[in-house]
């Protein structure tokens, strides 16, 4: 059989004919643009891709992609995606969700998809607010957040998406941000290449209801001191002058200045995303602004058994052991007896 070279697709080929209905200035546009940019690089035909989403602003995403898409119900995208992937493991499945969809109403499905290590990519757009319902606090909103439903400030402690993902022992965990498109594209590529659940938290600005929530991590004069861009095998260095680092003090991270008190690069924590033990990744996920620079990039990337693969393998094994099931066989099992004429 002759193999035909796949035509080289471009970002535009991944655009559907639908008009995009996000608010002008929404961070979702940047994410959509990067996803459309990265998709052609993967060499996967569009018809082999499925975007599954729940409910919320982010979950409109599948309508704008010229792939297969399923805009499901609130919080349930991981469950629907489980069925899609198990029914046809050859499909590349992306789940698009938000902080409300994925961590509030759908928190249960999210952690179970992750702990099963279903081979899907989960993009969680975190804007720390409910946008589509017009501005209530979300499970990632900071304590004391004043919103329409919390005029005196919320009294909830927030969830931290990366900590949740690592707590469920996700095999791939990363963070990126809508305003750093180059970095986002790199993280998307890494996630797509990963086999198993790839969980990405994307900081996303909601310019209507929570504008500037992540400004600290994107403003020119601040971002180098408030973010830590992780590189596998490299020491954890950050800061405008590239002179600050993270060192382990007992079980806790601390910020140190290179050169001060004789501190050298070798004294710093070196990032290892491939550690089987998720403790380092978890510790990183707990480094938060303003006490710490917030890690960006891949926190964890390990190889673990994949749910869909194992499920399909069991079917294959059962057939190898017992032969292809035939209707007559299953009907005639158990206690049977014959009644003569």
């Amino acid at each position, binding site marked *: 059989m002759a193999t035909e070279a796949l035509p080289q*697709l471009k970002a535009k080929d991944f655009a559907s004919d*639908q008009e995009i209905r996000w608010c002008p200035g929404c961070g979702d546009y940047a994410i959509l643009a990067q996803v459309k940019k990265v998709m052609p690089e993967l060499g996967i035909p569009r018809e082999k891709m499925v975007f599954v989403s729940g409910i919320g602003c982010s979950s409109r995403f599948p309508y704008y992609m010229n792939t*297969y898409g399923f805009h499901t119900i609130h919080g349930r995208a991981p469950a629907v995606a489980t*069925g*899609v992937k198990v029914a046809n493991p050859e499909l590349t499945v992306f789940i698009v969700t938000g902080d409300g969809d994925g961590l509030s109403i759908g928190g*249960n499905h999210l952690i179970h998809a992750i702990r099963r290590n279903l081979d899907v990519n989960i993009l969680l757009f975190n804007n720390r607010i409910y946008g589509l319902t017009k501005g209530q606090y979300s499970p990632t909103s900071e304590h004391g957040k004043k919103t329409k439903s919390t005029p005196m400030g919320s009294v909830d402690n927030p969830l931290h998406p990366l900590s949740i993902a690592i707590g469920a022992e996700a095999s791939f965990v990363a963070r990126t941000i809508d305003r750093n498109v180059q970095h986002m594209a790199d993280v998307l590529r890494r996630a797509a290449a990963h086999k198993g659940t790839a969980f990405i938290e994307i900081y996303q600005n909601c310019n209507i209801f929570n504008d500037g929530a992540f400004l600290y991590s994107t403003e020119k004069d601040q971002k180098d001191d408030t973010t830590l861009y992780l590189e596998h095998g490299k020491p954890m260095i950050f800061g405008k002058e590239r002179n600050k680092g993270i060192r382990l003090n007992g079980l806790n991270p601390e910020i140190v200045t290179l050169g001060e008190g004789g501190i050298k690069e070798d004294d710093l924590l070196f990032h290892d995303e491939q550690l089987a033990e998720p403790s380092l990744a978890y510790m990183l996920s707990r480094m938060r602004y303003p006490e710490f620079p917030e890690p960006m990039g891949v926190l964890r990337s390990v190889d673990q058994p994949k749910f869909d693969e194992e499920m399909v393998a069991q079917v294959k094994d059962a057939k190898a052991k017992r032969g292809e099931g035939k209707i007559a066989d299953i009907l005639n099992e*158990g206690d049977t007896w014959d009644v003569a004429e």
Partner: protein
Amino acid sequence: MTMPQGVQERTTVTIRFAGDSGDGMQLTGTQFTRTSAIFGNDISTFPDFPAEIRAPAGTLAGVSGFQVHFGSEELHTPGDEVDTLVAFNPAALKTNVDDVRDGGMVIVNEDSFGATDLKKAHYDSNPLEDGSLDKFRLIKVPATKLTQEALKDSPLGNRDKDRCKNFFALGLISWLYGRPLHAVEEWIDQKFGKNPDVASANRTVLHAGHAYGETCEFFEHTYHVSKAKLPPGRYRRISGNEATAIGFIVAGRLAGKDVFYGSYPITPASDVLHVLSRYKHFDVKTFQAEDEIAAVCSSIGASFAGDLGITGTSGPGLALKGEALGLAVMTELPLVVLNVQRGGPSTGLPTKTEQADLFQAMYGRNGECPMVVIAANSPADCFDTAVEACRIAMQHMVPVNLLTDGYIANGQEPWAIPDPDKMAPIVVKHPGPVKTSSGNGNGNGNGDVEPPLFKPYLRDDRLVRPWALPGTEGLQHRIGGLEKADVTGNVNYEPENHEHMIATRQKKVDLIANHIPEQTVMGPEEGDLLVVGWGGTAGALRTAVERVQKQGKSVAHCHIRYLMPFPRNLGDVLKRYKKVLVAELNCGQLRFILRGKFLIDAYGINKVQGKPFLVSELENKINELLSN
């Protein structure tokens, strides 16, 4: 055939084994049923067990029972009245003795009627001695002592020896009803093969029970129940849950589809998950989901990607699935939703039967959200109904509610094994790939979307949309829960469109009536009374109607399998009788619907005790309506 001396012929017999949850009553009943089925009797069973796995020993709450009706004629119910009750302790006696007919036999394990046992069962005096059982033939058997005695040389500990005493009862009853022991022995060897001491002890006690019957002189005669005259063919003893699972598997095979079963464990539906999980070599994928919602959602996702998506649950689980069922209606994907009904509301009566989820199946979703609803009539009928549910779901691109109930799910009856060669294939079509000029689907490399765009909601004459599978070139499309424009499937909020889509979704379901059989009745085509039912009450209704028909009265039985849509001729059928009686194990749900839809003045007989109808209570109601 001449009977040996001391043997009396019986047409049908109902035996109930009752004891503590830990006494092995389900096993004893099942083995006796198995023996009877293999012997050639018709059988019908009714296991009745508590929701607690192990309630405190000896208490009323912990009583577990298994009723078996076997006979030489066709049986459709597990029997109204008990001919022989085997009660392993005072609690079992107390909770079951009222169901024994006057003059019936009550066999008790007298060793378990000590002062403490009596107190646990709230007996003030010992019923074995106070004359309260005088209307029965009371047989007191020291089953515990005799079991220990029979096992005095066994290496087992006393506790393990004691656990064999249900086999003593099984041996005794087998002797009393002339059942051979070899089938049970074979089962013991198979079950306890790895533990020869236990196998040997159970065999010994089984024979001891049998020998006790022969020698004890309590019984003036034994009983003989001849083989039933079932139509020729090969039979199999089957429960409703087994038949349902096998139906799903066979439907998958008939359609050439992998079966995806997403489910969360729930009584009394879990057995369907257990059975399916053993048949992976039939391309069955079982997914024990994190909750009921994930179970249905994963099944919807599986259907979207081309599997036969099925989810199974019981009433409370169906309540949780409601929103997702709306999604399946909106996205017009095939889905089968099994509801093995139990007593409600809320957690209700997990192990008891009821038919009170009809409204939920018909209407339990937000918005105008029609779903196909079909119900199985009996344990074996679950097979046909399950296949039919899958056929409708895939051929009409709709979610289907398949209703069974705890009574037929756990009850067993003989099943005339169907001929696979006579089963019609389930023809399912998927649109094929579309190559465009650029050779890469519906784009040309420049972002210009080329016509023809795939139209996911372009319908055929049955209003069925195409089942286009992800992976198919050129058919990329998006579906979802938002209202959509017909044909294109694009999101659309226009008022007229919404009204059009609601009407279309309903009409699509209504049109299925052209693809299902017309309603039939058992009995005269017109007359004084039509007894209408649905689901697991079929056997009791049929038996009751047959009895009244034998009295020469004008009554017919109509059992409705297709509840949404109804068969095309149902309205005409209902109007051909002077009176209509709707019998249901709920407070009148089908009656309400029939009255509303057909404007008929239907009477009701309703029962919500977690128990099936007795034939006698139906018969009385029928006669009452006929005489007024």
